[in-house]
């Protein structure tokens, strides 16, 4: 849980898990930016949402916000909010925050500004501020599904699962067509060990993604990881296959494919997938994870020298971290 701040798609959002896998790739922002990580994650490790999805999440939010913006265009703080949103889109977070604060001084009930400030606050681990903003937003506009979704999301990020579930369920009632809400409901249920409920939400998230015409891989991967743990390798394989069709440039998908192949005893194919994953940079799986997969895949292929090379790569990462 409480993890890293990742920047993707020109937008910033704090993604899941992270504590166990600090980013290692060039360009990844430092772990626990803006605050110390709270002890341990509860969230399952299979809860990462890819940068692409995160970007799309925010793009969708932006589109929604644009529609909602019309309702707020006459607000005295609207211009400042728009400026803040634009700066946020360009990753100029301090400047964005200043504009959002100005907007809220002019209109403390400006809901889009409150949700944007909540996102900015989450980006610097100020979940208390994010929560307060979202509570204010929901007091002004109780039917805002996006504010409710973010409210549930921040609780999920803070590991407060009962509250996360309550908010996400409300968001789902307000907008049953949003696949991300279903995905996070699945993730929260899985975190609490309610496998059947998690499976139902993952399946629903996949259905909604497919119905959208532009499905994203995240629910496919989350569901496949759960099936892997449950030992349903065939079901896992079908989901990974679909994820590969949807996003062949995703490191995460190739990594999961490699893990499955290794589990099935197809070491040479696992090597191929692992090496492919290592070459890709879109996703949340770290270099360290891929190297560990490759150590095992090469060993199983009888290629000890290559395996040793990947072990050394991990040790080099560790030496770097210790500096």
């Amino acid at each position, binding site marked *: 849980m*409480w993890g890293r701040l990742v920047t993707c798609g020109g937008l910033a959002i704090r993604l899941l898990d992270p*504590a*166990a*896998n*600090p980013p290692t790739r060039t360009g990844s922002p430092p*772990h*626990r930016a803006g*605050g*110390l*990580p*709270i*002890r*341990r*994650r*509860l*969230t*399952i*490790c*299979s809860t990462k949402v890819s940068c692409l999805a995160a970007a799309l999440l925010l793009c969708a939010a932006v589109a929604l916000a644009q529609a909602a913006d019309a309702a707020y265009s006459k607000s005295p703080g609207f211009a400042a909010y728009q400026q803040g949103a634009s700066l946020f889109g360009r990753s100029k977070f301090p400047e964005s925050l200043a504009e959002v604060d100005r907007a809220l001084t002019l209109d403390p009930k400006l809901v889009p500004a409150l949700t944007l400030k909540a996102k900015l606050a989450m980006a610097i681990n*100020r*979940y*208390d501020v994010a*929560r307060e903003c979202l509570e204010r937003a929901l007091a002004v506009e109780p039917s805002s599904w996006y504010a409710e979704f973010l409210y549930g999301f921040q609780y999920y990020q*803070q*590991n*407060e*699962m*009962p509250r996360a579930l309550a908010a996400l369920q409300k968001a789902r009632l307000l907008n049953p067509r949003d696949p991300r809400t279903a995905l996070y409901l699945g993730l929260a249920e899985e*975190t*609490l*060990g309610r496998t059947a409920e998690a499976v139902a939400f993952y399946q629903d998230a996949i259905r909604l993604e497919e119905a959208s015409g532009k499905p994203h891989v995240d629910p496919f991967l989350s569901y496949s*990881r759960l099936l*892997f*743990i*449950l*030992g349903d390798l065939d079901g896992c394989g079908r989901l990974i296959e679909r994820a590969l069709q949807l996003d062949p440039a995703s490191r995460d998908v190739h990594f999961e494919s490699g*893990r499955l192949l290794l*589990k099935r005893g197809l070491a040479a194919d696992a090597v191929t997938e692992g090496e492919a994953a290592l070459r890709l940079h879109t996703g949340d*799986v*770290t270099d*360290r*994870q*891929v*190297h*560990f*997969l490759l*150590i*095992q895949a090469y*060993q199983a292929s009888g290629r*000890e020298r290559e*395996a*040793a090379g990947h*072990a050394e790569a*991990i*040790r080099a990462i560790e030496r770097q971290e*210790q500096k």
Partner: protein
Amino acid sequence: MSAYSRPRALAPRLFKMAALVSLFPLHAQIQFEEIHRKAGLAFQLQNGATGQFHQIELMAGGVAALDFDGDGCTDLFFANGAGIPDLRKSGPKYHNRLYRNNCDGTFTDVTAKAGLAGEGYSIAVATADFDNDGWPDIFVGGVNGNILYRNRGDGTFENVTVKAGLSGTDPKLGKMWAVSAGWFDYDNDGWLDLFVVNYVAWDPATEPQCGAPDARFYCHPNAYRGLPNQLFHNNRDGTFTDVSRASGIAQHIGKGMGVAFADFDGDGFIDVFVANDSVRNFLFRNRGDGTFQEMGLEAGIAFRQDGAAIAGMGADFRDFDNDGLPDLVVSGMINDGFQLFRNLGKRRLFEDVGQASGLLAGTRQMTGWSLGMYDFDNDGWKDLFFALSHFPALDRYLGRPSALPNQVFRNVSGNPSTNAGGRRFQDVSATAGPGFQHAALHHGAAFADFDNDGRIDVVVTTLEGPVELLHNISKSGNHWLAVKLRGHRSNRQGLGAVVRVQLPDGRVLYGHATTSVGYASSSEPLVRFGLGTYGEAKTVEVRWPSGETQVVSGVKGDRVVEIEEAEAHK
């Protein structure tokens, strides 16, 4: 078919059935009763918590099972916390405690007489006879001080820390926070050496605060700098030499929790496994020349299957599938899933069998501390016990209590009735008795047969609560054998010796002598075997750390058998 042909045809079938029955012993439920009150164990573990979320509060709870007075009844020693931030044992409630087993189901607190009340914030206990005088000694590891107590053999102990050079203070790093420790003879010279597992650099004055201002919580280990572990060579004269750097151990910075020893590659030298918290696990292969090669990555035990580091806690390094190769079990935090690594016996590789064995799915919602791999129903297959609890104050995040009941998994690898096949474990906690269902903040655990009935019992510490003594009352009717070793060329307790028991049907069971089991704790040094339906072992073979091999034939079961190493101590 003649009238006589039927019995003749049946005879071999009946014989085969009888053989099958003997192959597959009785699988009565594993059951425990909780008897700490009846036993007179009044110890309560104090972690000194004051709501400030100091990291050290999470780690207390070491316990040791040892026969300090040599009466054949296993006694108990508990490590205890101290006040925070002064880290002093300001009153009796913080004292470490020694309880003598009265051999009648009760215990007596003999701390004062023994001189073991201790000082500082204690966490780890490791017991063994380091000076080969026949009396087990006690090492206590902690936050601000480590202590070595030499057992005088008269019911009292002497603090020999300074003379021994085991205060734990590193010339460069100062006193490091020890959470586990263990004794083993890494150079097979007949004298036990000490491995100390250190966690993170921690200072009450600079303790970071984590979480939002309205929701403070314990910091993630990433908020602290990791530490190296330490190895101390026994100089055979009551002193030790810090060989952490020379051996290569100190080169590896971790956040150590549990430690376990076994000769995993069968080269005659004991290797070391260290479970780390949120960074990868270490496997130190003993090269046999005084140095160690860290090869957790190559061996496949460094990470979880997806390459993520778990919050590793307790560890045990024993053979769960009776193939003669020590395997590894490691507990972790909620949503980690506990790890089970099977030793493949080739190219020093392990296979992660957590998922296939059923352990991963069965433990994903648990946070495990100490643990042990013992044959609780004496059916010839080692089972798994986990001391469980989430972190204190995690309730709000989970929506359910942090306190948990413990968990026991039966090894059903050899049980045809389960139709499980392969290497499988089955969670049998729900049927392990009413006393087993008690939820608490369980931490340390030690394993021994406290009432000498042949069934292994468990003692478990709980944060800010009473100790639990889980008396094994499983009614399997299976036979057992406990091997007590007495080394001469090897160390006196024979720690590190590998014991191989052949049953009358030809099957072979394996074990090795160690007191390093679980988290921060220390268990009896006896090597135990469940014999199933057999009342005796065909042979018992001991491979001593000295290299000697000894075979004893026709060993009667249901008793503790002492096997003495042939050659005199040099």
